[in-house]
């Protein structure tokens, strides 16, 4: 374990140096992060400008749900998503070999090799909107609710990570389909909506999206004091199951990896 902590600390340091060295890239990434973080907030304000609530969520709570999504994706993009963007290229060019021969778990290394520090700004934007919205609603969450919010968000991130990794693993068989990762960026937007929107439909095609919605809405419910024990249990079970599935599927897929570029 200490070995992995030391490696990750080194990766954090190297990524920081890289960010400092390429300033134009840093500024561009920063503009992009601020833009997308702000967009989500503008989006929910526009959507709730004509309604008082939806699916049992008041408009203020919908804003908190979206702001939670912004924080959530800020963390996810900082740690993981740039790596997912690279996996397609790594598999297509046959450079996955260099990851497989290292004396470290290949899934871990592929997932955390690059850190996108500029996305921290999304966490700040989302956090500020949450605080502002709670103040507008005259609602002060308890310490337990805040602790639950943070803990459940970590489990939610495990769900999101597992789903992304499961889908990205499919690139082993079809490396040319690199835009699957773009699709993931897109479909992840479902997490901004209340889970009830999907569960209420009772449509089998929407069920695969439910874990993405649960990952964000459960922590948000905790913050506004509306969470049920079943929600928490569902989130915990889903996160463990999906993470185990991502491990198993990666090892299974590697058996088909030919080491030749696509």
């Amino acid at each position, binding site marked *: 374990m200490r070995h992995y902590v030391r490696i990750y600390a080194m990766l954090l340091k190297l990524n920081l140096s890289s960010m400092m060295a390429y300033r134009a890239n840093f500024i*561009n990434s920063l503009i992009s992060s601020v833009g997308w973080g702000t967009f989500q907030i503008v989006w929910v304000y526009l*959507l709730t400008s004509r309604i008082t609530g939806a699916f049992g969520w008041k408009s203020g709570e919908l804003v908190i749900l979206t702001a939670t999504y912004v924080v959530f994706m800020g963390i996810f993009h900082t740690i993981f998503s740039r790596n997912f963007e690279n996996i397609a290229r790594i598999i297509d060019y046959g450079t996955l070999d260099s990851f497989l021969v290292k004396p470290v778990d290949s899934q871990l290394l592929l997932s955390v090799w690059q850190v996108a520090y500029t996305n921290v700004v999304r966490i700040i934007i989302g956090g500020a909107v949450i605080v502002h919205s709670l103040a507008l609603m005259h609602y002060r969450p308890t310490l337990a609710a805040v602790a639950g919010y943070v803990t459940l968000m970590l489990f939610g991130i495990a769900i999101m990570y597992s789903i992304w990794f499961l889908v990205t693993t499919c690139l082993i068989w079809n490396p040319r389909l690199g*835009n*699957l990762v773009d699709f993931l960026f897109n479909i992840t937007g479902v997490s901004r909506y209340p889970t009830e*929107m*999907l569960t209420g*439909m009772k449509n089998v095609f929407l069920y695969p999206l439910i874990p993405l919605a649960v990952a964000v809405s459960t922590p948000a419910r905790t913050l506004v004091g509306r969470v049920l024990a079943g929600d928490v249990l569902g989130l915990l079970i889903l996160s463990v199951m999906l993470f185990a599935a991502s491990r198993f599927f990666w090892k299974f897929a590697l058996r088909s990896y030919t080491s030749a570029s696509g």
Partner: protein
Amino acid sequence: MRYLKIFLLHFEHVFENRAQSLVWFSMSLSNPILQILFWRGTQGIGGWSYTALTSYYLLIAAAGAFLSSHIEGDVYEYDIKQGELVRYLIRPFPYYWIKLVEEAPYRILQGGFAIIVLACVAVWFGNYLSVPLTPLTLLFGLVSACFAYFLSFTYKMSLGLLAFWLKDIRGLYSFVEILGIVLTGFILPLSLYPHGLREVTLALPFAYMIYYPVLIFQGKLGLAEMLQAVGIQSLYLAVFVVIFTVLWKRGVRQFTAIGQ
């Protein structure tokens, strides 16, 4: 005829990678579908019934697939930054038109997917799609869609040409993409935006790239409004063509032929 041959060659290539196009199309479809699901619980807002809203979002998805050009990344990354522009400069075709012929197959294939989806919705969920087409709205809709595509294409080409002067414009592209989503009506029909923002967005060229053609197909505009929309589209197109021409003439003079 020469352009047709080039178009067919590109279409062959695009069709070969149709799975990739299907993923792109799924992306443009996913958000409108989520919006449709979101508004399911409402009885309609601001004079829009639920059927009108679902039709709007489905048409927005189709218009996004058909009419939204994404050529700027190609122009910026491959042609100017990596120097591929040389290949185009030595060919006896204007750069603008050859890029149009290269991009059109993507729009046609993704638009084809959109037509299939609209047809499926019309057959199985007819209540959710209301497109009251008359010969007049069809005519104006098609003319407006053509203008919208050229508007979007010329605007994105001009954006791509900024790479002649700017070192790294990915941040700008992200910003432009976000503006596009907000100002073309992907979130909500622009007429439902809050007062002030609504007037601004309705006047900007972005509304004429997607929003107005969709309104025409939905039968929400009268003859005078349709004429006005097409007239303003042609004016905006003229402005963008001038901007493109100026950027191209100035930019290509300082192109180093080994990339920027």
